């Protein structure tokens, strides 16, 4: 009992963080990124987009902000149809298996520095689980996400979902490699796998892709950081492209490309089960954006090392949270922008890009980073 009392404050803290982050931030963000996708794509294509649904039974439309709620309600009310020819257990398991890993990865994402709450001495670290193997954890859990898609394709017991599942699994396995390799330069530079301390270092020395700090008003950049920008930019391009492939987004949405496979692995799904696939994809996109922001764009830190990490004042803690989510939203908009601008790759082109180009370039990039680190070694 005494043991339980000892861990109770930690449990409460963790519960508050989990509920706050996942249920109050990530899930609404998932719903609203669908809305953002529709409105932003409309903007790019000279259309209007959904702008009508607002407060029910009134004429107030709020630029269509009620749309995600209406969509959610619609999905719940739709008939949940299970075709007769499917393998029932796996058919039911698959949607959950796509959604869960996507949400699980946000456990190690530092969504802010510290939060100094009044009347509490110790400032709270704004991350659910401060794991020392954070990056590996993300890769490990994200790699489980492929099971949902593979199972959906296989359990549906029909041709197009099966082809979609096959495509998706081979695509995800291929791009996991370049995704992992493209992160290694970051690990080499910061010498740490803990996402929190990676961001902390970026906060102190400038972002990975913007290694500039201010000395008074004069920008300062060291030769080492300038040289490291080359491999880091290459890493960033490879990382982001692989992220697109991992999250099955256009231009790499071959697992579900409509023109060839009807809807790919979720062709046989309806109602909320379909919605789980749909939202799982968006959740993966949000977490992926958060990950990219954390690794390359300084996470919750302001550029040029401005502000503080929030361990001494509530204000800077809140600014950190705001900065992080602003960056994530910016990145999501970038995702959407790419989706509505670039046509789909052919499947052999996709595989060629992953195995013949990115794999080799990422390996070479690691070598380049090592060489630069050798040259500028602090002796």
């Amino acid at each position, binding site marked *: 009992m005494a*043991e339980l009392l000892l861990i109770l404050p930690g449990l409460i803290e963790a519960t508050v963080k989990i509920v706050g982050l996942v249920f109050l931030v990530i899930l609404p963000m998932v719903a609203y990124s669908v809305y953002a996708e529709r409105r932003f794509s409309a903007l790019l294509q000279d259309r209007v987009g959904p702008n009508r649904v607002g407060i029910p039974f009134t004429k107030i439309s709020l630029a269509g902000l009620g749309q995600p709620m209406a969509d959610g309600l619609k999905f719940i009310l739709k008939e949940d149809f299970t075709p007769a020819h499917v393998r029932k257990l*796996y058919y039911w398991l698959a949607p959950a298996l796509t959604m869960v890993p996507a949400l699980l990865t946000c456990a190690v994402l530092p969504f802010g520095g510290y939060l100094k709450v009044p009347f509490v001495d110790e400032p709270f670290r704004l991350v659910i689980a401060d*794991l*020392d*193997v954070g990056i*590996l*954890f993300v*890769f*490990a*859990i*994200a*790699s*489980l996400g*492929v*099971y949902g898609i*593979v*199972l959906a*394709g*296989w359990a549906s017991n029909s041709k197009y979902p*099966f082809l979609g*599942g*096959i495509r998706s*699994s*081979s695509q*995800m*396995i291929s791009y*996991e490699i370049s995704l992992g390799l493209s992160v290694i330069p970051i690990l080499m530079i*910061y*010498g*740490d*796998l*803990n996402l929190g*301390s990676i961001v902390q270092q970026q906060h102190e020395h400038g972002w990975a892709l913007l290694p500039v700090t201010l000395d008074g008003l004069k920008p300062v950049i060291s030769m080492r950081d300038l040289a490291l920008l080359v491999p880091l930019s290459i890493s960033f391009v490879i990382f982001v492209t692989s992220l697109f492939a991992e999250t099955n987004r256009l231009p790499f949405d071959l697992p579900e490309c409509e023109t060839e496979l009807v809807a790919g692995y979720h062709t046989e799904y309806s109602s909320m089960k379909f919605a789980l696939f749909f939202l799982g994809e968006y959740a993966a996109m949000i977490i992926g954006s958060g990950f990219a922001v954390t690794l390359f764009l300084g996470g919750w830190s302001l550029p040029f090392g401005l502000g503080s990490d929030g361990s001494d004042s509530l204000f800077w803690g809140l600014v950190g949270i705001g900065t992080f989510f602003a960056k994530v939203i910016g990145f999501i908009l970038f995702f959407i922008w790419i989706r509505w601008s670039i046509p789909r790759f052919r499947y052999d082109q996709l595989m060629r890009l992953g195995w013949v180009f990115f794999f080799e370039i990422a390996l070479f990039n690691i070598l380049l980073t090592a060489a630069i680190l050798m040259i500028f070694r602090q002796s």
Partner: protein
Amino acid sequence: MDVLFYIFSAIMILFGLGVVVSRNPVTSALCLVVSFLGLAALFIQLDAFFIGIVQILVYAGAVMVLFLFIIMLLDLKSEEHQPMNYMAFAGGVILAVVFVVQLASVLSSFKAGELGFPLQQHELTLAENAEGLPEAAQERMAEEKLPDVHLVGRTIFTHFNFPLQVVAVLLLVSTIGVVILSKRKLT
């Protein structure tokens, strides 16, 4: 915290049985995945975060996906009931017995109370003796956490450098072999 150990052990054993008992290859493969996850959880309980996560990353995330992939492509039907193969059965039993004997011998030589559970303090003193750890690892040790990734990396790249190179060459050879095999023109 002991409760978690029993829960994960139970999960491992149950799904391990599932691998053997189930007639459907896909079910077997998925049971194995769950079993791996349980194993990873046990590793993490022993403060071996790195090994635990790598267990998920490599086995559950990559190897088993490929397995599943192949099973699905081959479209294996559920296994039919076959007459018992007594030789194979005997082999399995012997293997299990040998394993149990070895486990028993290891456990009997373990003197409880000498190192104590958790082993962390012991490991920390060992780690502090290691030289040339980077700053991040030093900081972590000051917080009484074990920088296991740094320690594993350091051990592999200093003490076992040659075996590592050999393994790398082996992997390279197999990669080249696969490329040559798949690129060979059929005559």
